[in-house]
């Protein structure tokens, strides 16, 4: 059985064993989407379904941020008419969704990943290129 860690413990004390990078999936074009393929290094740590669910939720959130529709067009036109000065007082739709994503990742880390000795890094900190998953050494069993 793995020893459960709190998020705080992980960041401060545990040693990093390795990092896994989930790359972008470009099959739908240039929209932000990550591959749901389950990395082999995580096989012993987390269930495939849980991982896929996390990545799929992230993908859905990014799709919401980049969605073209009435609301985004309205925002765009309004911004253009005000010569984009409106963004000095208002957040863009994309930024609002990014905050939602950050909260989701924080929540997932606390509830699911940290107890398993894993840590998700928000993709925005890696330029939306990868979802970085840090695998921490598990002290109860010994180093991998």
């Amino acid at each position, binding site marked *: 059985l793995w020893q459960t860690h709190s998020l705080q413990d992980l960041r401060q004390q545990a040693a990093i064993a390795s990092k896994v*990078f989930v790359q972008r999936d*470009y099959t739908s074009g240039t929209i932000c989407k990550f591959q749901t393929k389950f990395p082999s290094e995580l096989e012993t740590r987390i269930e495939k379904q849980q991982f896929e669910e996390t990545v799929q939720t992230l993908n859905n959130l990014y799709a919401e941020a980049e*969605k*073209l529709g009435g609301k*985004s067009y309205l925002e765009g036109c309004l911004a*253009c008419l005000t010569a*984009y000065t409106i963004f000095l007082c208002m957040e863009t*739709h994309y930024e609002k969704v990014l905050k939602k994503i950050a909260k989701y990742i924080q929540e997932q880390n606390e509830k699911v990943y940290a107890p398993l000795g894993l840590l998700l890094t928000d993709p925005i900190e890696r330029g939306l290129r990868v979802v*970085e998953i840090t695998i921490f050494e598990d002290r109860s069993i010994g180093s991998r």
Partner: protein
Amino acid sequence: MHLGIDEPRECQYNQICTHNSSPMETPHSKKRKVKRKWQIFPGRNKFYCNGRIMMAKQTGVFYLTIVLILVTSGLFFAFDCPFLASNLTPAIPAIGGVLFLFVIGMLLRASFSDPGVLPRATPEEAADVERQIDAANGAGGPGYRPPPRTREVVINGQTVKLKYCFTCKIFRPPRASHCSLCDNCVERFDHHCPWVGNCVGKRNYRFFYLFILSLSFLTIFIFAFVITHVILRSNRTGFLSALKDSPASVLEVVVCFFSVWSIVGLSGFHTYLISSNQTTNEDIKGSWSTKRGKDNYNPYSYGNILTNCCAALCGPLPPSLIDRRGFVQPDTPQPAAQSNGTNTCPTTQLQSHMAAVTTPLLHAQPILLGGGPVLQPKPSVGGPCSALGPGQPSLPSSIPGLSCGGEVLALHDSENHCHHHLHHQHFISPEETPCAAHLGHHMPLYDPASQDSLHEDSVRGLVKLSSV
């Protein structure tokens, strides 16, 4: 200096304190001055207002643009508007004023914002990608030249090749390209515009387009009304005295006349690009042209012109990925800073990471790091030359293909405006870079690596071009 006969006592030395001997660990660094990320940004960009404003390195032409617009508009408002307002309608200076403000606003927005720069890979990411590439290519003995680093992906039925960027250590997303002037990978790279003093990419394309569109209107507006002014005056006083009364009008007409052709043409060209959802880069290379193949089509187009236009101009504005004003965390690994444009002295941590990351490349590709010899492209004009778009990795200007690339470009008349830089562009070879001296001073380890990587980039670029 000892002479053998000295007594041992005179050979005593104070033990040298090794703490302060390293140049990096001066007493000043103990103050832990926190830096913002723009200060250690690896690209060749200039930052102003504590990271809020981001521009390319060479901004001379941008100031020329500002001066031309300000002077012409200023002369118009000062000399022509009083006459027009009193004789025709005061709406003329009002509309002119609004147009002028919009033009300047869009220009500043296009010039000062982040075009969509992709941050470079962190050392762990770069190592991971290297591992994947090695696994994909299989082990080879010395002398084995692995194939160019590309990944293929099928997007909406079209096969697109993703290329590996040696400077940024990432596989470029589709439509991204590496700007050799700014030394950054830019998303949805359109072109590097010297008039705007910045790259035009995903985040500032709409501002650029609105700038040239409104500038076309402004130019035509000023041209038309200055002519009107001169005609009305000459009806009263005769042509020559009209010109004498309003000498500024001549200058305005000349400037506007020459601007109209290039700017209106450029607006028209970009309107076409937006409606077909292509970038200048793709159009020049003919990536989606049916000449390449019967089944060749643009996988990014939404199908109809209106959606394409709306998506480009009114779509959501993506955030900047480089977080210029964030603070540097002291313990985070710094991304690969191979370029010659670092603003500040990097830390020892960076040095050790760099050593770890560059050596695999240097070892794996012994053939290509010759420095001097550059592969000559095939003499055919069609393929390799037309591929010399603005977004290619830095190519030495000695390539004869560059001149025929110019000829290919000359066919697109309206592009001459922003593509003159291709004729005059200094594809920066490592020797020319002023910062190479800085690099040599601070990081002796880097000089060969960064020069080689640029050569590597350019040679690989050619290998890929000739193999595509």
